[in-house]
C-alpha cells in the first residue's frame, strides 16, 4: 500500500459565524483516485482550496509528504487544479493557456509543443490551438482547463467537478480518459463531484461529506454496501431506510418482525437505522412472507422494473426484473447480509 501524500488534521474553516469545515481529518495515499462526494455547499471546494493552498485553515494542519504546508503558497506546491469555474486566461488562446505552466517552468519549445499537442488530442480539441477562449463552448472551456492542469504532470491533481458542463456521452468518454491518464501517469487525483455514479465508478476511495463534516471514507463497494448512516445510504444510490430495533447481535426488528442479520455491536434493544437496497428485495407469495404490501406503481427502467410497495405506512422501493401487477398484494424477503444496520445519526453535529 502506498504511503500518505496528503493529510489533513483537525482542519476547520469559519466564514463569519458560519463554520463550513468542522474538524476534518483525512489521509490521501500516493497515486490514489480520491473523490469528494456530497451535496452542494457541503464544503468540497473549500477542502480542495485548502489542499491547493488558496485558503489557510483557521485551525489544524495540512501536510504534504510529511511536511507541514499550511503556509506554503500555491505556486510552490507540486499540485495543479482544474477549477470549478474553469478560470481560463481570457487574453491567451487555447494553446497559450495550456502551455502557460510549462513556459513558466522554462521547458524547451519543442517539448512544450509536443506536450500541448498530446493534451489537445487527449481532450479532443486538436485544431483549436489558436481559438480565443471566449469563442469556446462551456464544455470546450472545461476541457481546456483539464488540459492546462494535466499538462504539467503534477504529483497531485485537484479536479473540482471537471465534467459538469459536458453531455452524457462526452462525460463518460472523459471519465474513462481521466481514469486512464491517472493510472498511466501515476498522479494522485482528488476529484469533486455531485454525481454518485461518477464517484463510484472512478474512485479508489470515496469521501462522503455533508454540512462541513466527513460522513464516511471508504472504497466504493464499502460505501455502497455498508453505509455508516442514513445520510450516506440515501446519498449513495437508492435505498430503503427505516427505523428498527436491534434486539441483540444478529437480530433486528423492523415493523414488528424479527429478521436475522449479520451486524453486531449495536447493543440490545437499541433504536437503529436499517438500510435495504431496492435490488436486494425479492418478491414472493404473500403466504410465505413476513412482510406483505400492496404494489402502488410499476415503472419500466430498461434493465429492471422499479416498483413501490406500501406496507405498514412505509413505502418500499423495489427493483426487479419481473413486474408485479399494480394493486396486487405481494410478499417481500431479503437475505441477512443484505440488511445493513446503522447507528442513528446524531442531530446535526
Amino acid at each position, binding site marked *: 500500500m502506498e504511503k500518505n501524500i496528503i493529510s489533513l488534521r483537525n482542519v476547520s474553516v469559519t466564514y463569519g459565524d458560519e463554520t463550513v469545515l468542522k474538524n476534518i481529518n483525512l489521509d490521501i495515499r500516493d497515486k490514489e483516485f480520491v473523490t469528494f462526494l456530497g451535496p452542494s455547499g457541503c464544503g468540497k471546494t473549500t477542502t480542495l482550496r485548502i489542499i*491547493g493552498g*488558496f485558503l489557510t485553515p483557521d485551525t489544524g494542519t495540512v501536510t504534504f509528504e510529511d511536511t507541514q504546508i499550511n503556509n506554503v*503558497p*500555491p*505556486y510552490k506546491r507540486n*499540485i*495543479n*487544479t482544474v*477549477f470549478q*469555474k474553469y*478560470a*481560463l*486566461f*481570457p*487574453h*491567451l*488562446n487555447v494553446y*497559450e493557456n495550456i502551455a*502557460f*505552466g510549462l513556459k*513558466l*517552468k522554462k521547458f524547451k519549445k519543442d517539448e512544450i509543443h509536443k506536450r500541448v499537442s498530446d493534451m489537445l488530442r487527449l481532450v479532443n480539441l486538436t485544431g483549436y490551438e*489558436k481559438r*480565443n477562449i471566449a469563442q469556446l463552448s462551456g464544455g470546450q472551456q472545461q476541457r481546456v482547463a483539464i488540459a*492546462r*492542469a494535466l499538462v*504539467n504532470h503534477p504529483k497531485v491533481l485537484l479536479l473540482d467537478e471537471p465534467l459538469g458542463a459536458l453531455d452524457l456521452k462526452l462525460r463518460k468518454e472523459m471519465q474513462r480518459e481521466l481514469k486512464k491518464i491517472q493510472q498511466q501517469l501515476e498522479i494522485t487525483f482528488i476529484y469533486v463531484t455531485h454525481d454518485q455514479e461518477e464517484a463510484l465508478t472512478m474512485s479508489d476511495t470515496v469521501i462522503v461529506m455533508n454540512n462541513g463534516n466527513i460522513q464516511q471514507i471508504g472504497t466504493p463497494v464499502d460505501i455502497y454496501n455498508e453505509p455508516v448512516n442514513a445520510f450516506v445510504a440515501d446519498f449513495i444510490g437508492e435505498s430503503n431506510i427505516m427505523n428498527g430495533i436491534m434486539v441483540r447481535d444478529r437480530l433486528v426488528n423492523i415493523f414488528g418482525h424479527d429478521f436475522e442479520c449479520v451486524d453486531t455491536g449495536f447493543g440490545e434493544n437499541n433504536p437503529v437505522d436499517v438500510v435495504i437496497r431496492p435490488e436486494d428485495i425479492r418478491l414472493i407469495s404473500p403466504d410465505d412472507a413476513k412482510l406483505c404490501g400492496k404494489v402502488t406503481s410499476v415503472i419500466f427502467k430498461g434493465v429492471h422494473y422499479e416498483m413501490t410497495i406500501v406496507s405498514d405506512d412505509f413505502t418500499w422501493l423495489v427493483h426487479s426484473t419481473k413486474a408485479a401487477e399494480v394493486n396486487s398484494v405481494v410478499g417481500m424477503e431479503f437475505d441477512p447480509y443484505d440488511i445493513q444496520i446503522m447507528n442513528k445519526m446524531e442531530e446535526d453535529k
Partner: protein
Amino acid sequence: MKKLTSAPYLLWMAIFVVVPLFMVAYFAFTDQSGAFTLENIIKTGQYTPIFVKSIAFAAISTAICLLLAYPLSYILSTMKVSYQGTMLLIIMLPMWMNFLLRTYAWQTLLGNNGIINNLLGVIGIGPFKLLNTNGAVILGMVYDYIPFMILPLYTVMAKIDKSIIEAAEDLGCSRIQSIIKITVPLSIPGIISGITMVFVPAISTFIISKMLGGSSNLLIGDLIEMQFLGNSYNPNLGAGIAFVLMIIILIVMAVINLIDKSDSDDKVLM
C-alpha cells in the same frame, strides 16, 4: 424607434460638440475681417518650444500618474471588498475641493516662506527654491489629475476574476509573475483610458503652470488663454493654436489606440 430615442443626444452633440468645433476651425482659418488665411496656423509655428514643453510636461505627469496609480489600484483591488469603497472615497476626497484652492494650497506649501521650507529650516537646511520651478508644475499636474488615472485602473482591475489569478499561481506564478503575466495584460484597457484621461487635460492645462511655475513658465493652455483674455487679445490666433493642439492630441490618441490594437491582434495570431 431607435432614431427617435437617440434624437436628443444627437441634438446635444450637434449643439455642444460639432458647432463649437466648426467655430474653432472657422476662427483658426480666418483673420479679423473674416477672410480666409493660413496666417494663424503659420504663426503658431513660432510657439513650437512651448508646444514641445507642454507635451513633455503632460507626458511626464502622465507617466508619473501611471507609476503611482498602478500599484495603488492593484492594492486597492486586492483588498477586502468591504474596504474598497471606503478607501476609494478617501482617495477621491481631495477631488471634491475646488481645483484652484488645491493649487493655491501647493503655492503656500512650496513658497520660500512656505511650510516645507520652514520645516527644513528647523533642521538647518534650505530654503530651497521649490515654487516657480518645472518640478512644481509637474507636481501640481500629478496631484490634480491622478484620480483620473486611479479610477479607470481600479475599475478594470476590480473586474478581473480572482480565480484567474489563482489559476496563474496554481500553475507556478509567484505574486509578481501573476501581476506581469495576468493583471497587466488584462488591465490594458484601463491603462489606455487612464492615459487618455490624464494626458488630454494635462497637455492643455493652464493656471497650474502660472501659479506654480511662475509667470515666465508658459504652457500652451496659458498661451491660448492669453489670446482670449490677456492683453494680446487675438481670438483668431488663439483658435489657430487650439486647432493645432487638437490635431496633436488626436495623433497621440491614434498612436496609443494603434499600440492597443496591435497588442490584441498579437493574441489572435500567436
